[in-house]
C-alpha cells in the first residue's frame, strides 16, 4: 500500500523541459566566477586601504615623535607636541576600542534561554558529584594495537591519568574524577545538566536563567546540587570537599569541558552503582574488534572484576561479532539485539546492543537492582531477559536537540571563548601523544607547529576497511587548541586562512568536499570573515566518512592553502 503510494509520488513532479534551462548553467557559472573575483578584488582593495591608512597614521605618529627633538621649543605654541601625543593616543584608543568592542560583544554574558527549558524540569537538587578517591584508579593494560583507541577511551573517562611502564607493558592509571556512579533514576537529569554545564564552561557563559532569576555559574551549580567549585579566573573546577585529594590540581579542569556534549552519553557509564560500570559509546570504527577477546580488558583494582571493553560496529556484527565467544544473538521481531556474554565473570553480565536506533549504545547490563528504572522494556531472548534502551535513546535525542539550539545560539560566543580556553589549558598533555605524524604522512608543505601541537591522531586499521560503518576518527585537537564543536555525529574542523577571500575558501572547500564524493553535505557553520583579515571557517560533515576520504580532502585543502591553520577536532560518526 505504502509502496504503491510512494511510487505515485513522482507523478506529482511538475513537468519541465530540461533544455530550456541548459544555458542558465553557463550563466550561473560565469556569475559565480565573477562573484569570486569581485570579492577577492574587494578584499584586496580593502586590505590595501587599511594598510595605507595604518601606514599614514604611523607616519604621523612616529614621524612627529622622531622629529620632536629637532623641533625648537616655542613659547607661542607650547602644547604642540602634547597635542600630537593626544592625537596619537586617541587614535590608538579608538583603534583598540573598536577591537575591544568587537570582542566584548562576542563575550557578553547574554542570557541563554535554552537553559531555562532544560532546567525547569529539575526543580530540586538531584545529583552529587562524589569525592574523588585516588584508590579508584583503574589500570589499563595497553596493547600496542589498540593504544590509541584506549587513549580515546581514557580521555573520555578520565580527567586525570598517568602512565607507567612496568615489565615491558604500559599501564595507564586513570582517575575517574568527579562524576562517578550516578544513580540510575537521576540519569535523565544528569544529561541535561551536564550538557549545560559543559557548554557553559566551554563558551564562557556565566549567567543562567532559572525561574526568572539570574544565577551565575557557581550559583547555578549550587542550585542543582553540585559541590563543584569554579574559579572565575581560570575555570578551574574542583571538588570542594576533597580538594586536597586531587592528585594534580591543574589537571582538574573540568576536562576543559572536554567531555563536551558530543560525548555526553559517556555519562551512561555510570548509571548504576557497580554493575553497569562501563559503557562504551558506539564509535563506528572498531579497530579493537578483532582484538577484543585477547587484549582489551580492564580491571578494577578494587574488586578485580573484569569487564569487556568493547566497541562493536553495529553493522559489522556478522563479521566482527563472531569473534566473541558465547555470542547471543537473536532477531526478535521488531527489535534486534546483540548480546555478548562476557566470560570469566562471577555474575552474568551482558552487553546488549539495540539496533533499532541510529544511535546505538552498548551498555553493560547485569543483574543489578537499578536498571529496571531505566530500562523498562524487557525482551526475551532465548529465555533470558534483556532490557531495551529505548528510553535512553530518547533522552539522547532530546538532549541533542537541546544542544543544537544552544549551539546555534552561541556559536560566535563559543568560538570567541576558545582563545580564553586555550590560554588556560596545560600544554603538557601534548607530549603524551603522537603528534604531527598525520600531516607528515601527507607530505605536505605545512607548518606542523601551527597546527598539530596537542593533536592526537587516530589512524584506522586497514583491517577494518570492509566494515560498515568505517572509521571516522581522524583527529582530535587537544587542549591547547581546543576547538570542540558540539555536534554529535559530525566531523569538524576549523580552518584559518590569512588574507584570503572567504568565498574563495568556501568554494574550494565545498568543491573539494564534493569531489571527494560523499553525499553528506559539508556545512559551513561559522565564519568570521567580517571580523578581520583572517578567514576562519568552521565546517562540519554530517556523517561518517572514510578515513582516506577525509585525508584526501584535508590534503587538498592544505595544498591550496599552505599558509593556514587547520584545526581538526573530533570526528564522530554514529550513523
Amino acid at each position, binding site marked *: 500500500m505504502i509502496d504503491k503510494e510512494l511510487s505515485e*509520488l*513522482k507523478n506529482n513532479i511538475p513537468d519541465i523541459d530540461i533544455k530550456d*534551462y541548459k544555458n542558465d*548553467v553557463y550563466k550561473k557559472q560565469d556569475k*559565480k566566477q565573477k562573484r569570486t573575483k569581485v570579492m577577492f578584488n574587494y578584499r584586496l582593495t580593502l586590505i590595501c586601504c587599511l594598510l595605507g591608512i595604518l601606514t599614514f597614521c604611523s607616519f604621523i605618529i612616529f614621524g612627529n615623535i622622531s622629529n620632536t627633538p629637532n623641533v625648537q621649543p616655542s613659547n607661542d605654541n607650547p602644547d604642540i607636541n602634547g597635542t600630537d601625543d593626544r592625537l596619537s593616543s586617541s587614535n590608538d584608543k579608538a583603534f583598540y576600542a573598536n577591537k575591544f568592542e568587537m570582542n566584548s560583544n562576542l563575550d557578553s554574558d547574554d542570557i541563554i534561554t535554552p537553559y531555562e527549558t532544560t532546567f525547569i524540569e529539575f526543580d530540586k537538587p538531584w545529583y552529587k558529584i562524589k569525592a574523588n578517591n585516588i584508590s579508584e584508579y583503574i589500570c589499563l593494560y595497553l596493547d600496542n594495537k589498540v593504544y590509541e583507541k584506549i587513549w580515546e577511551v581514557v580521555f573520555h573517562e578520565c580527567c586525570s591519568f598517568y602512565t607507567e611502564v612496568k615489565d615491558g607493558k604500559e599501564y595507564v592509571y586513570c582517575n575517574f574524577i568527579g562524576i562517578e556512579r550516578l544513580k540510575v533514576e537521576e540519569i535523565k537529569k544528569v544529561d541535561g545538566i551536564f550538557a549545560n554545564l559543559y557548554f557553559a564552561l566551554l563558551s564562557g557563559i556565566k549567567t543562567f536563567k532559572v525561574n526568572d532569576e539570574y544565577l551565575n555559574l557557581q550559583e547555578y551549580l549550587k542550585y542543582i546540587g553540585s559541590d563543584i567549585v569554579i574559579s572565575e579566573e581560570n575555570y578551574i573546577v574542583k571538588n570542594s570537599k576533597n580538594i586536597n585529594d586531587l592528585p594534580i590540581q591543574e589537571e582538574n579542569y573540568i576536562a576543559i569541558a572536554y567531555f563536551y556534549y558530543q560525548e555526553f552519553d559517556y555519562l551512561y557509564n555510570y548509571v548504576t552503582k557497580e554493575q553497569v560500570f562501563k559503557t562504551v559509546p558506539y564509535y563506528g570504527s572498531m579497530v579493537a574488534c578483532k582484538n577484543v577477546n585477547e587484549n582489551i580488558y580492564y580491571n578494577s583494582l578494587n574488586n578485580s572484576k573484569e569487564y569487556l571493553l568493547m566497541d562493536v560496529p553495529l553493522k559489522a556484527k556478522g563479521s566482527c561479532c563472531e569473534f566473541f565467544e558465547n555470542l547471543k544473538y537473536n532477531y526478535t521481531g521488531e527489535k534486534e539485539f546483540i548480546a555478548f556474554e562476557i566470560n570469566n565473570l562471577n555474575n552474568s553480565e551482558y552487553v546488549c546492543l539495540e539496533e533499532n536506533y541510529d544511535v546505538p549504545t552498548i551498555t553493560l547490563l547485569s543483574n543489578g537492582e537499578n536498571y529496571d528504572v531505566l530500562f523498562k522494556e524487557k525482551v526475551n531472548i532465548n529465555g533470558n531477559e534483556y532490557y531495551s534502551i529505548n528510553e535512553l535513546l530518547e533522552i539522547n535525542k532530546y538532549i541533542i536537540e537541546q544542544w543544537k539550539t544552544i549551539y546555534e545560539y552561541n556559536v560566535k560566543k563559543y568560538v570567541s571563548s576558545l582563545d580564553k580556553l586555550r590560554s588556560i589549558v596545560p600544554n603538557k598533555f601534548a607530549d603524551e601523544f603522537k603528534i604531527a605524524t598525520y600531516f607528515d604522512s601527507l607530505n605536505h608543505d605545512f607548518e606542523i607547529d601551527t597546527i598539530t601541537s596537542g593533536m592526537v591522531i587516530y589512524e584506522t586499521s586497514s583491517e577494518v576497511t570492509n566494515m560498515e560503518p568505517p572509521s571516522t576518527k581522524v583527529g582530535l585537537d587537544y587542549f591547547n587548541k581546543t576547538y570542540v564543536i558540539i555536534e554529535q555525529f559530525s566531523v569538524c574542523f576549523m580552518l584559518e586562512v590569512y588574507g584570503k577571500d572567504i568565498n574563495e575558501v568556501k568554494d574550494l572547500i565545498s568543491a573539494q568536499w564534493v569531489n571527494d564524493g560523499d553525499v*553528506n553535505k559539508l556545512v559551513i557553520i561559522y565564519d568570521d570573515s567580517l571580523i578581520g583579515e583572517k578567514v576562519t571557517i568552521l565546517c562540519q560533515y554530517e556523517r561518517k566518512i572514510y578515513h582516506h576520504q577525509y585525508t584526501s580532502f584535508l590534503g587538498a585543502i592544505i595544498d591550496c592553502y599552505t599558509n593556514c591553520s587547520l584545526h581538526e577536532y573530533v570526528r564522530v560518526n554514529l550513523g
Partner: protein
Amino acid sequence: MKISEQQFDYVYNEYAKELYNIAYGYTLNREDSIDIMQNAYVVLLESNKKFESNEHIKYFLIRVTINESIDLLKSAYKKKVVKDNDILVKFPEIKKEELPYDLSLIVNNLPEKYKTIIVLYYYDDMKIKDISNVLRISESAVKKRLERARNLIKEIIERDYKHD
C-alpha cells in the same frame, strides 16, 4: 580535468531530468529544483575531478544534487515549511486526523538518510544497486534503510491520521 562541451551536452541531456526529480523530492518546489539541478552542473563544470565514465559523472551529479538540496533546506529562508498544523491553526474546528495526509510532506520530514533513499528510489526510480553506488553503502544497507523508511512512514500515518 574539465569536462568537454560535448561531454557536458551529453550528461546534461541524459541526467538533468533525473537530477531535477531528485531535487524536487527534497524541495517539493519546481523553481528550487531547477536551481539545484543547475548548480549541480555548475559544480561539475568547475570540477577538476577525473571521471572514469559517464556513470561516474552521474553518481557525482546525484551526490551534488543531494547535497545542494539538503543545503537549501537548511538555509534559513527555507526553514518555514507549510505543514498541516498551519491549516489546523487557521481552522481550529478541523481535527488533524480528518486531514488527508500528504505523503510527499511526510517523506520530506523524514530523517535525511531515509529521505534520501526514498527520493532516489521513488522519485528517480533508481535501482538498489545504483543507490548503493551513489551512497557508497552496501546494497543490503540500502534495502534495510528503504524498509525502515517505509515502516517509519507507516507509523507516522497510523499515528497522525486515521485512515483505513
